[in-house]
Each structure stands twice: as structure tokens, then as C-alpha cells.
């Protein structure tokens, strides 16, 4: 028995070593960092213990800007992308021809490098000395005036960021929703059809309740994912996100850690824990709401 115990642990050893060093220890450490005041990363010393890091972060205008940006991004992209994905998946499951082709095309953004394609979006929206950019030309064609979406007003930049975020997250949602729709038992639909139920009613009374667990799963993961937005913003506006007023909470954490304003792991830790607290709260609220509305 002793030997068998040892053997089991031996097989687990690599995983435990990796997880211990790079997940468990950091998890404890980040809480400690966040309470160490005046931490100096060069000498690895600190003055005292307290909540100063939190109050500093919460008063930092850059953090507040990042907080605001992230919340706007979440509130706009999560409902829009989920709703749009639901429409597209419903459309997909009602057709037979070329369905596979559509599914393949829709999935493409998932396997592409966020930073690389973000550059294409930037070019489509950017106004330069040479050209207004394709999107602006379309706006001009319909009689509107040009807007610099990349270096211009706040709402224009936020619009592009939301658009790109939705473009990036759609493949996953469409894929999951399409397979959820396919798994709904056809008997329900047949029964409803015999009763002469209208399509709208079938959708709201059968389809939606049947896929509601998946829908809520997508909403929860969507919230979590959108709160962690970062590389989309970098792809569009470059690494100087504070200057572009387009920073996100995660961006703020990394900026505090490294880069132009970096070298403050304590502030970064405090911000990371604030982010974690926000995400946890939202997830719990989501779960409470879902318990009321989801039919398992």
C-alpha cells in the first residue's frame, strides 16, 4: 500500500510542481503583495502593512478610466453578442444547404491572432493623411462626415473597440448555441406544430427554455471574458492605452507591473484583486438570477 501511494504521487508530481509554483503560490502571494505598502521591487522591501494600495488604486484617475471603459465594454458587448449569436444560430439551424460552409466561416475569427486582425480593423477605421479610411468613405457616401475612429473622440474609439470585441467573441457563442439548438428534442417541435403553434411562440416557449442553461452559461462566461478585455484594445490602439483613454482593468494591471509606468507589483496586485472581486460578484449575481429563470 505504501508503494502504491508513492507511485500515485509520483505520477502527479509534475502537475503539482507546476501548479504549485505558478498557480497556488502566486495566488497566496498576490494577496500579500496587495497589502504590502511601499513595496520596492529593486530591494524587495516594504514599509508596512495596510490597505493603502487599494485606496491608491481606487483614487487613481487611470484606474477609474479603465474601470469605466471596462464596464461600458461589458454592458454593450455581452448582450449584443449573445443576442446576435442567438439570431445567427437560429438562422443556421433552420437551413440545410451550405450550413457547414457558414459554420466554418463563422468560426474563423476564433483561430486568428487577435493582435494581427486588430491591425486590419485599425486600418479600416483609421483616418490618415493619405486616405479617410474605408469606413469613413462609406459614411461619406451616405452623407455623413468623417470621424477618426482610432485617434478621435471617445465614443468613436469605444465603438470600434466594442465592434472588434463582438467580432472576436462571436465564433465561440455561435458554436455553443448551434450545438445547443441541435440537441433540443424534435418531439417538442412536432407536437407544437400539430397544435398549430406560431413560430414566435415555439421559439419563446420551447426553444428558449430548452437552451436557457446554455444561454446563461454563455452570458456568465461572456461577462467574465469581457471584464478581462485587454489584447483587443492593444490591437486597435497600441500599447499606450492610458494616453488613448482606452485602457481596461487588465491593461491597468499590466501597466502597473511593467512598461512606462511600471514597477509597482503592489498596485497591480490590488487592482487584480479588485477585478477578481468584481467578476466574482457579477458571476454570483448571474447565478442567482439564472436559478430563477433557467429550466434544467
Amino acid at each position, binding site marked *: 500500500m505504501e508503494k502504491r501511494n508513492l507511485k500515485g504521487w509520483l505520477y502527479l508530481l509534475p*502537475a503539482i510542481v507546476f501548479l504549485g509554483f505558478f498557480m497556488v503560490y502566486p495566488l497566496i502571494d498576490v494577496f500579500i503583495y496587495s497589502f504590502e505598502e511601499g513595496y520596492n521591487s529593486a530591494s524587495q522591501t516594504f514599509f508596512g502593512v495596510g490597505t493603502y494600495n487599494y485606496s491608491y488604486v481606487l483614487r487613481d484617475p487611470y484606474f477609474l478610466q479603465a474601470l469605466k471603459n471596462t464596464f461600458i465594454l461589458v454592458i454593450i458587448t455581452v448582450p449584443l453578442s449573445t443576442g446576435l449569436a442567438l439570431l445567427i444560430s437560429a438562422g443556421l439551424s433552420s437551413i440545410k444547404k451550405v450550413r457547414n460552409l457558414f459554420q466554418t466561416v463563422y468560426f474563423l475569427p476564433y483561430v486568428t491572432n487577435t493582435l*494581427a486582425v486588430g491591425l486590419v480593423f485599425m486600418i479600416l477605421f483609421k483616418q490618415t493623411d493619405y486616405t479617410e479610411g474605408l469606413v469613413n468613405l462609406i459614411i461619406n457616401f451616405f452623407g455623413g462626415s468623417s470621424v477618426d475612429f482610432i485617434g478621435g473622440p471617445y465614443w468613436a474609439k469605444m465603438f470600434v473597440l466594442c465592434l472588434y470585441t463582438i467580432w472576436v467573441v462571436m465564433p465561440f457563442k455561435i458554436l455553443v448555441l448551434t450545438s445547443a439548438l441541435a440537441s433540443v428534442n424534435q418531439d417538442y417541435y412536432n407536437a407544437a406544430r400539430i397544435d398549430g403553434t406560431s413560430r414566435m411562440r415555439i421559439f419563446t416557449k420551447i426553444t428558449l427554455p430548452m437552451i436557457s442553461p446554455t444561454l446563461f452559461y454563455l452570458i456568465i462566461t461572456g461577462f467574465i471574458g469581457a471584464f478581462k478585455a485587454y489584447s483587443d484594445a492593444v490591437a486597435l490602439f497600441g500599447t499606450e492605452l492610458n494616453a488613448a483613454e482606452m485602457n481596461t482593468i487588465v491593461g491597468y494591471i499590466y501597466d502597473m507591473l511593467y512598461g512606462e509606468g511600471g514597477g509597482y507589483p503592489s498596485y497591480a496586485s490590488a487592482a487584480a484583486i479588485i477585478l477578481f472581486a468584481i467578476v466574482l460578484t457579477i458571476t454570483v449575481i448571474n447565478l442567482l438570477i439564472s436559478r430563477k429563470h433557467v429550466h434544467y
Partner: protein
Amino acid sequence: MSNQKDFETIERNAKRRKTIRNIIVYAFLVIWAVLVLFPFYWMVLTSIKSYSAYNSEYIPQFFTLAPTFQNYIDAFTAVPLADYFLNTIIFTAATTAIMLIVTVLAAFAFSRLQFKGRDLVFTLFLALMMIPSELVVITNYVTITNWEMRNSFMGLILPSVTSVFYIYLLKENFAQIPDELYYAAKVDGTSDFKYLTKVMIPICKPTIVTITILKVIECWNSYVWPRLITDNENYYLVSNGIQYIRENGFGRENIPAMMAAVVVISVPLIVLFLIFRNKIMEGVSRGGTKG
């Protein structure tokens, strides 16, 4: 007679309504497909326009009659794109290989071996799945800096290896293999390790392939950790390379060359996707996290 007529009218109306509905659905689906594909089209198109042609187009042309490959040559000569590529391949291959070894061994221990504390450790592993990487990246950054592994492959690879979710996925798959096989192998005097490599891994090959592909995609697109840990161009991965090119390379305005680099970076994963389409989509719907 009039009954027959009514019936025909109703049938014709229903048919017409169905056609209209189909047209609307297809139109909607085509619009989204165009929105998805257009950035790809634009990136390939721009990459084969010559620099002077691109900059003289006030109104961008939707096609080009004089395609050029000069931009691709520029992308490989003006910036060390080939080096970024090589770095990414080394990083991806090493990370995925180590991840596979760690994952297979752990999944085997959890699913096949009996030992004290196994279930407790497994629960702890599951709990770790909920920890966002943003929370641990700070300490990892400090750890790697202290170990003086910044700007090294070790520093890039080590913290990227662990994936609790893949251990979970593989463990579930391993657990489906009937116990009888194991006892039969034991009677024949097969060692545990041999049973793992000769029986379990071949049986669960589809899942192993799936997690390999998912990890490759993850590695190829990773940006945040490499950005934190490398500031030496010799260790840039493609994501960082693209960002660097955008901010410094090609004299900022050479958009066609930039797009050529973007195409070169995107193609490997798109090819991988088209080959393993079903495996990837199935794997992602079971455990994708992006989005």
C-alpha cells in the same frame, strides 16, 4: 370546388411565406459571413498592393490588377519576421509537449491509480480552474524576474505549461476505459506505465489530439505573458512581433508590408483549422474559454 380553391390558396400562401422567410434567413447569414470574411479579404488584398499604389489611393480599390509580392519580401527582410516565427514554433512545440506529458501523467494518476488523498487533490485541482490568470501573472512575473529568466525560453514556457482543464478533460476520458482491460493487463504482468502508453493513450488519442490542437492555438496567439517577460527582440513571439512592427517597423506607414506580415502570421492557424475543423470545433464547444 371552392374548398379545393381555398386549400390551394392557403398552400400557395404558406409556400410564399416560407420562401420569403428563407430569403431573409439566408440574407442575414450571408451578411454576417461577409462581415467575418471582409477583414481577411482586406488584409490579403492590401498585402499584394504595392506601397506606392496603396498610398496613392485616396479611395481604396476593392481589387488590384497589379499584384506584387514585394511586401512579403519586405516583411521577411526589413523585420526579423522569420525569427519571430521560429521563436513561436519553439515556444509552442515545447509548451505543448511539456503540457502533454504533465497532463497525461496527472490524468492517469487521477483515473487509474488508487492512493490516499487522491480525491482531495482532484477537488483542489478543480478549484484552481476558477482562478483567472490575471491574478497569478503578477507573482509569476516577479518569480521569473528573480530567477533571471526574463528573455529566455524557460521564462516563456514554464508558467504557460499548466492547464488544469485539460487534465480534467483527459481524466474524464481515461475513466471511461473499462477496468477489465486494466486487470487483464495486470494478470499478464504489464506495468502501470506500459499500460498507460500501450493501452490508454492509443484509446484516448482523439481527446489527446484535441487538447494538443487547442494548446497550439492558445500558444500561437498568446500575447500578454510574452509581452511581460520579453523586451529583447530576439525572443519576441509573433504577437509581440506584430505589435513591435506596428509601432516601430517599416517606418509606420508601410501598411501593405504590415499586412503581409499579418497574413503570414495568420495562415498557419487557418490551415490548421481547415485540416482539423471538426476536432477543433468539437474541442472548443466542450471546453473553449475565449469569449
